[in-house]
């Protein structure tokens, strides 16, 4: 193929991927009358910030954004606290036969369960425990969502660290835990960072469980606040689009930070990027 043809095709694909997102941006800054203009206005319109002002004046969205952030950070932290040692244990300690592989695979398989299967009993369990409609309930569930991901990512990163490093430290009388903290983790920093940055993407894109388990406004997360605006009877496109932009910014920021590890994250650590 000639390279001009190639570039033309690539640009076409790029346009198809990006144009819908660009359209969302324009709707969020258009006045109401410009939104439905025929022919559609792609560039020439008078921008306004009205929809964003309206969005934040209600107060609920700011609150749901805070909820999202709070839930995502705490569940990421918890998942790291539990998952990093597990990954290290599976990767570096002795296991009879191939138990480390078996356990690792089981951990991953919990992630493959369709959420709708566990969501009904989980809902009933949380209701009985009084954790429905609450942030602790969501944090607990998201920690479980993130854990398999953390374990698999970190196992991959630990695998790449030369064993000699730890052996030297252990020779000097360090315990396993001490070695992990003082020798291994500092070396695995990029991996830790990638995993930490990726987990909130996983959590903030989760919709089903948050939708079902939190009807109260106090624990609503941002995707939900959005959805309720979308499914409301009377649709206000400007506000809806502004809400969409607000909901996607944190995810894109995190994704930008984790760009180098995108492949690894999206494939649950199975493909090196």
């Amino acid at each position: 193929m000639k390279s001009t043809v190639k570039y033309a095709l690539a640009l076409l694909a790029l346009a198809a991927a990006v144009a819908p997102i660009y359209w969302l941006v324009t709707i969020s800054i258009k006045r109401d009358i410009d939104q439905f203009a025929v022919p559609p206005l792609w560039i020439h319109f008078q921008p306004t910030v009205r929809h964003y002002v309206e969005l934040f004046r209600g107060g609920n969205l700011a609150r749901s954004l805070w909820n999202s952030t709070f839930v995502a950070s705490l569940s990421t932290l918890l998942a790291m606290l539990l998952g990093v040692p597990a990954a290290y244990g599976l990767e570096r300690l002795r296991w009879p036969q191939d138990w480390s592989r078996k356990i690792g695979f089981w951990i991953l398989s919990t992630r493959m369960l369709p959420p709708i299967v566990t969501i009904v009993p989980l809902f009933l369990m949380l209701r009985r425990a009084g954790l429905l409609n609450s942030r602790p309930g969501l944090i607990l569930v998201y920690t479980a969502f993130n854990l398999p991901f953390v374990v698999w990512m970190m196992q991959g990163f630990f695998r790449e660290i030369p064993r000699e490093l730890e052996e030297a430290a252990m020779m000097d009388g360090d315990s396993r835990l001490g070695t992990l903290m003082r020798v291994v983790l500092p070396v695995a920093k990029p991996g830790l960072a990638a995993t930490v940055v990726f987990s909130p993407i996983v959590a903030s894109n989760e919709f089903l469980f948050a939708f079902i388990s939190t009807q109260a406004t106090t624990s609503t997360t941002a995707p939900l606040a959005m959805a309720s605006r979308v499914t409301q009877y009377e649709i206000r496109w400007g506000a809806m689009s502004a809400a969409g932009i607000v909901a996607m910014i944190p995810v894109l920021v995190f994704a930008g930070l984790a760009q180098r590890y995108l492949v690894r994250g999206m494939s649950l650590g199975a493909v090196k990027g």
Partner: protein
Amino acid sequence: MIRTLRRSWPGVPWVVPTVVLLLALTIYPLVYSVKVSFTGPAGFSLANYARLLQDRLFLQAMAQTLLYTVVALAIEFALGFALALLVDSLGRGRAFVRAGLLAPMLLPPVVVAVIWRLIYNPQFGVLNGTLRNLGIHTSALTWASGERGALASVILVDVWEWTPFLFLLLSAGLQALPQEPLEAARMDGASPWQVFRDIVLPLLKPVMTLAILLRTMDLLRIFDQIFILTQGGPGFATETVSLYIYRTAFRFFNFGYASAMSFLALGLTIVFARSLMRLMRVSR
């Protein structure tokens, strides 16, 4: 006892917290839901499973889910692969093109649904607006809100959102290919097509398998986008298994029947994934 445990299973304490949490939040609910699905008004009962066999709507939802999965996967794979090959062969600007192509996949599903509502709306959407401007009659083009086009419209959204995922994995696979066999084949006078078929494809197989497998699992459980975009409608046109289970559980509060359905769905997912793996002869 504890000593032998410590000597031959030194890794156990490292893993226990993770395993316990996952048991409590995924396996226990699973077991619990088995129990609920076998419980009728008067104790043990098979009524929920008997009902499954006669539920036309469930069968329809199942058929639509499978159709959705197969069609979306085929298009996404073909497109993603083509794009991966195309972008891989680009010189300057490759990184830029790649980053742009990935954008749809990273958006929260809710945002994706909002975007496509803006596009598909028959009266005010940009799609019909553009067509009208070109002089095309749009009164019959209802996209996601008409019974006939709804499923196709929803599949198109999936293709837009998830082709980047296949593109991402496949182009990572292409980049990681060892160069020596490719060069050796070229030196021996193999045509580009021969190189592709006999060397690139076999080497890429593990990545292709993984990509297809991950995507299939996600497609079979599709919920978010459809729920926000069409709520399974109009009528029953875009109802999938997950939506139907959701409705049964949280609209009609029939948890027993919902559990029974989700088990059938789970079983089918496992069978589907297994046969896919066998089909592609994965050795892991």
